[in-house]
Structure formats: structure tokens, C-alpha cells
């Protein structure tokens, strides 16, 4: 689960990580109230959406920049008015962009130097890794590619936790000393505690900055959480912003379906995550374009299959459906009846190709064949994929 920058900053402060003074606003009326919490002078206005590249983004009305520097609070108010309710397109939002429903005002900071700091899971080591670099404010992937020696990594042993000497190693690697070193040490400690205690998946501070007075601040913050651990963090779950999620994905999660919208026109309904991914791949392989990832899970019920059809058809781009089921334990006939019921209930007009294999498959195929519905049967995944690609054209 992702959260907004303003929510992340509030969380950081709770764990003793200093951030520039800031306040969010969701309505133009709130602008004034929010701005009174900030000191006079230069102010940043930041669009709050769950996507990166905001600064270089463009709004659909042509207004440029989702993050703006303003010389005065008055300017900030005006700029915020241009952003709120407007739709921001960035490199990460896709062409549709995201509607800005919250703006975040922060006191503009005097930057001495920018750094990069992140904590995430190192999969190979099965341990948290702290990643730090003197190259902040730029794409870290680019730094890793061009100057890998400027990326410093520290693995944290979960049995002991983050050791003080490791923090000193990081500070040395960043070339900090004096007050900056002391402040950075406290910040790293706080950031790690937050990562660990909130079950974060990733905490990324880019840039982390030093100021001429020796302060160290998190100027931006990108924080995401492990979905599997949300059950023990109701306070984190409360930060979920459904406006940032695809309504179809929200509906799917209500039915315990795993759905991700894509931009193609062939919808897929599959059991199992690996098979669902491969189904998308095989559609592409034969020249089609998958409209979604949809995993109905290992024990899908009739009701789930019906719900899945409705969600799939909620996407206006869909021109055909490919159902790919390997019924290991699951009875193929139960799935087949679910498909027949769903097709009748939604009055499906689009081409439908079904590939059923596994447990009780003969009965399942018979159910489909005797339904009187136009359902094309595929023998193998490859056969079925070719058929749906051809039907959609």
C-alpha cells in the first residue's frame, strides 16, 4: 500500500525524522488555514498523487509542474488553486494522469547539498538494506547505472537491529561531519525504526538535504507498506486513499480477487498468479494485448467467477475474454457452471474463449457445450490464446 507524501512526512516526524514545516489542504478554503501554519517567505506547493515525476509533470489544462517554488504565501495560494482538482500527468501516471485531490504546502528549504537515502528489503540476503548516496535529487537507477561506486549499502541483521557503527559507516560514506553527522545519525536511526516498526516495504528519501545551518531534512518522502502486514497496523491502513486506486481493483479486492488493469483489449480470467501472468504473456506472444491481470485464486466459487466477469466488463476497452483455468483440486465443472451463469447474467456479447484443464474437465467441457452459448473452447493455452487473438482481430 502506498501513501501520500504529506502522510509519509507526518509519520516520519512521529519517528523523529526532521522534515520541512508543512500542511496539507483538500479545499481552497483550507489553503489559508494551512498556510498560517507556515512561516512567511518562500513556499513550496506540491501536488499529492501516488506517482513519481510530479515536478516534471504537466496538467491536462497545459499548466506545467506538479511541484512549484513560490516566493510568497500569496503566490503559493494562487498556484495551489491551479493544481487542486486538476489532473496531473507524469512519466509514471500513464496518459490518463491523476486528479490532484490534496495539495501540500511546505516551507521552502535552503539547500546546501542533496543526498539519497532509502530502506527496503534485500531479497537475496533476506534482510533490510539501507541504501545511501551522495547523489540526491536525481533518479537513483541512473546513479546505480552510471556511477555504482557512489551507492553505499548496509545490510541490517534482524537479530541485533541497526548497529551504531553501521550508522557511522553510512555517515562517513556520505562525507558528513560535525553537526551534520550528528543530525544525520539521529535521522537514520529514526528512519530505520519507522521502516521496521510499521512493516514498511520501502522508505525512500530523495532528496535528503543538508542546510547551511547544519540541519538534515527529508525534503521528499515515498513510503509504501507490506500489504500482508496491514492487519496489525490499523493506523497505517487508515491512510489508504481509495481515490488513488482503480475502482475495478477495489471492487476485485472485495471479492478476494487479485486484479490489475492494463491497457490492452483482451481480458483474462485465470486461477493462480503465475498462470495469470503467463496468460498475459501468451496473449502478447500471439500478437494480442492483455487488458488485465486477474487471479481468481485456487478455490474460486461460482459467485467469484460472476464477480470477475462483471469487473472485467467494467473496462470499456475489452473486446474479448480469455478464461484459462487449470483445475488442480478445483472442479472444472464448478468453474464451467460459473462461467455459464456469468455469461447469462451479464448478457455477454463479446467473444469468449475458454481453456479448461484438470480435475473433472470432461464434465466441465460438456457443461459449456450444452449451454447453448457461444463459447469457443481451446485445447491448450497456446491454442486458446491464438483463438482469442484472432477473434478480437
Amino acid at each position: 500500500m502506498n501513501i501520500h507524501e504529506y502522510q509519509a512526512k507526518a509519520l516520519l516526524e512521529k519517528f523523529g525524522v526532521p522534515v520541512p514545516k508543512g500542511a496539507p489542504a483538500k479545499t481552497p478554503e483550507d489553503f489559508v488555514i494551512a498556510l498560517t501554519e507556515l512561516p512567511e517567505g518562500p513556499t513550496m506547493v506540491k501536488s499529492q498523487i501516488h506517482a513519481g515525476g510530479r515536478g516534471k509533470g504537466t496538467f491536462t489544462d497545459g499548466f506545467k509542474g506538479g511541484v512549484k517554488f513560490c516566493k510568497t504565501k500569496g503566490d503559493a495560494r494562487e498556484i495551489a488553486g491551479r493544481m487542486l482538482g486538476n489532473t496531473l500527468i507524469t512519466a509514471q501516471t500513464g496518459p490518463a494522469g491523476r486528479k490532484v485531490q490534496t495539495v501540500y504546502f511546505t516551507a521552502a528549504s535552503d539547500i546546501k547539498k542533496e543526498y539519497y537515502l532509502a530502506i527496503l528489503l534485500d531479497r537475496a540476503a533476506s534482510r533490510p538494506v539501507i541504501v545511501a548516496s551522495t547523489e540526491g535529487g536525481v533518479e537513483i537507477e541512473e546513479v546505480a547505472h552510471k556511477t555504482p561506486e557512489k551507492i553505499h549499502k548496509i545490510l541490517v541483521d534482524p537479530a541485533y537491529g541497526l548497529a551504531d557503527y553501521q550508522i557511522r559507516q553510512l555517515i562517513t560514506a556520505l562525507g558528513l561531519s560535525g553537526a551534520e553527522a550528528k543530525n544525520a545519525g539521529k535521522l537514520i536511526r529514526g528512519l530505520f525504526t519507522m521502516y521496521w516498526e510499521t512493516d514498511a516495504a520501502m522508505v525512500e528519501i530523495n532528496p535528503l538535504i543538508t542546510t547551511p545551518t547544519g540541519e538534515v531534512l527529508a525534503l521528499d518522502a515515498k513510503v509504501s507498506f507490506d500489504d500482508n502486514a496491514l492487519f496489525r497496523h490499523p493506523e497505517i491502513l487508515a491512510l489508504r486513499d481509495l481515490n488513488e486506486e482503480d475502482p475495478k481493483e477495489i471492487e476485485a479486492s472485495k471479492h478476494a480477487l487479485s486484479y490489475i488493469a492494463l491497457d490492452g483489449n483482451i481480458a483474462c480470467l485465470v486461477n493462480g498468479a503465475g498462470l495469470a501472468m503467463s496468460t498475459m504473456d501468451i496473449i502478447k506472444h500471439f500478437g494480442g494485448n492483455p487488458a488485465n491481470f486477474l487471479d481468481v485464486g485456487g478455490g474460486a466459487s461460482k459467485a467469484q467467477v460472476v464477480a470477475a466477469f462483471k469487473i472485467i466488463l467494467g473496462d470499456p476497452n475489452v473486446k474479448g475474454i480469455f478464461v484459462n483455468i487449470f483445475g488442480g483440486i478445483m472442479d472444472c465443472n464448478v468453474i464451467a457452471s460459473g462461467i455459464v451463469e456469468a455469461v447469462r447474467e451479464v448478457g455477454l456479447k463479446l467473444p469468449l474463449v475458454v481453456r479448461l484443464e484438470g480435475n473433472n474437465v470432461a464434465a466441465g467441457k460438456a457443461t459449456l457445450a450444452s449451454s447453448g452459448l457461444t463459447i469457443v473452447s481451446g485445447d491448450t493455452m497456446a491454442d486458446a490464446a491464438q483463438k482469442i487473438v484472432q477473434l478480437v482481430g
Partner: protein
Amino acid sequence: MSILVNAETKILVQGITGDFGGRHAKLSLDYGTHVVAGVTPGKGGQFFEHGSHKVPIFNSVADAATATGATVSVIFVPPPFAGDAILEGVDAALELVVAITEGIPVRDMVRVKRTMAGRKTRLIGPNCPGVVTPGTGEGSQGGCRIGIAPGYIHRRGHVGVVSRSGTLTYEAVYQLTSRSIGQSTCVGIGGDPVNGTSHLDVVRMFNDDPDTHGIVMIGEIGGNAEVEAARWIKAHCKKPVAGFIAGSTAPAGRRMGHAGAIVGGAEDTAAAKIAVFKECGIEVAVTPSDMADALIRAAKAKGVMLS
């Protein structure tokens, strides 16, 4: 021969009194697997009954192992308690713990894995379909089925299958069996970012197993475990290997069902992994329908008999 488990292996089921655990314990008993004990704290002394089977339930893994000689545990307990259940199996010095549970928090698994370091127990999973060593009976009955895989699709033979994904493993096994190619052991290592046994661990075991003549390795986007295994195969493995990577079409940064299936950087994409497979002499399945045929091609090229 086989790896990890064989027809004689005695297993205990943690969470046998739950719906999910109970259903699959029954299917394993039907398959002919020696399910000798169940563990549910507070229900010790009761029995899990299925047909003519009467499986004793114990309060702890240690009690169950001592009383029945079980050396392997399979875990079906819910995610908040699953990490604890794994460590109980480790503490009882079991040889193998197979964690089926999906949805265990990453932090729990990070701690569990650290605590397991240096202990004798091997963990497979979590979030995995389990392990099957097929038997010689009808529908491969008489083998050892641990977890949730459909037993009947298997056939006793000489191909090792290792995969992160359940249904994709079944797909591969089914393709092999349909071509009369049997399996030595099929291992689902699970779709989570932190797991007990890697592709490489299983590939090494298959390489050492004289009864395994060929290997199907199925991976997906995210992490670099498949790449690590592929490089080892290039250097050490003489057996024919076929590979498939799921997720060529997955958008970056989105979690595709499995918690571990997410493209983070340039090197964990499907394209990058497939390129390494090719470079390491692994016959790549062009589509998921091509997995068994890819192994047949690889075997032919090396002059190896698969069946």
C-alpha cells in the same frame, strides 16, 4: 530416488483441524502419503479421521514428532501465526518444513529466516504449493504429496520440476505427464520475496540426484534467484534444463499477485532473466505451453533419455 521426500516419508500437519489443512490432509491420505500426525494446540488427544485413517492430534510439534517419528511438517496455519509455526518445527529439529500459508508479513519471514540460520531444518515456501514425489500406483498414487498440488496429474519418472508458482507448476507437470514423461520430484518454492529454499538449492539437489535426468525451472519477474541458479547451471550442471519466466508483459512497479512478483529494476524483468537463461545454455520455453517440449528439445540436444 527423488529429492527431499520419498514414499516412506512421515509427515505431520500443523493446522490439520482447519478447513484448508484438513481438506488437503485428506487428499494426501488418499494419495497414499504417510500423514502420521496433526498438530493443533489445545486439541491434543483428539483424532483426525478420514475413511479408515485415524490420525492422532498433538498439542505441539515436538510431541508429535517424538510420538510418531514424523520428520517433515506441512503448515496450513493462518498468516499471523505462521512464522511461529515454522519456528516450532525448526525447534523440534524436523528435517523439512513446508509452509503453504500465503500472506505472511515480510518482516516475520526476515526474522524467521535469521533465526533458522545454522539449524538443520530446511524450509520450503512460504506461499507455495508444496512438494510431490510421485508414486507408482494409478494416478501416481503411493507417492508423497505435501501441500496442495493435485496428485493425479503426476507420473513417476525422471524429471525434476522447480517453480515459484503453483498453477504454473501443475501446467508443466501436466504437459510432461501428457507426453508420458514422469517426474522424480516437483518442488514449489513459493511466490514470496523471502523464502526458505531457492531455485538454486533445488537445482543442486536435482543435479546430485542420479534418478533425475532433466530439470524444468520455472521462474517469474522480481528478484534474481533464477539468474543465480542459471549461472550455477552453466558452470556445474550437465543435465538438460528447460526454463520459463512468467511476467514478460507485467508493468514495472506493480505486484502481480505474488508478493515477490514485482519488477524493481532493469535486472529482474522477464527479458533480462530470459537473456541470462539463454546465455547459460538453458532451453527457454517460448510460451507456457512449450515447457515440456522445451525440455524434450534440451534432452535431445544432450542425448539424454527422459523416460
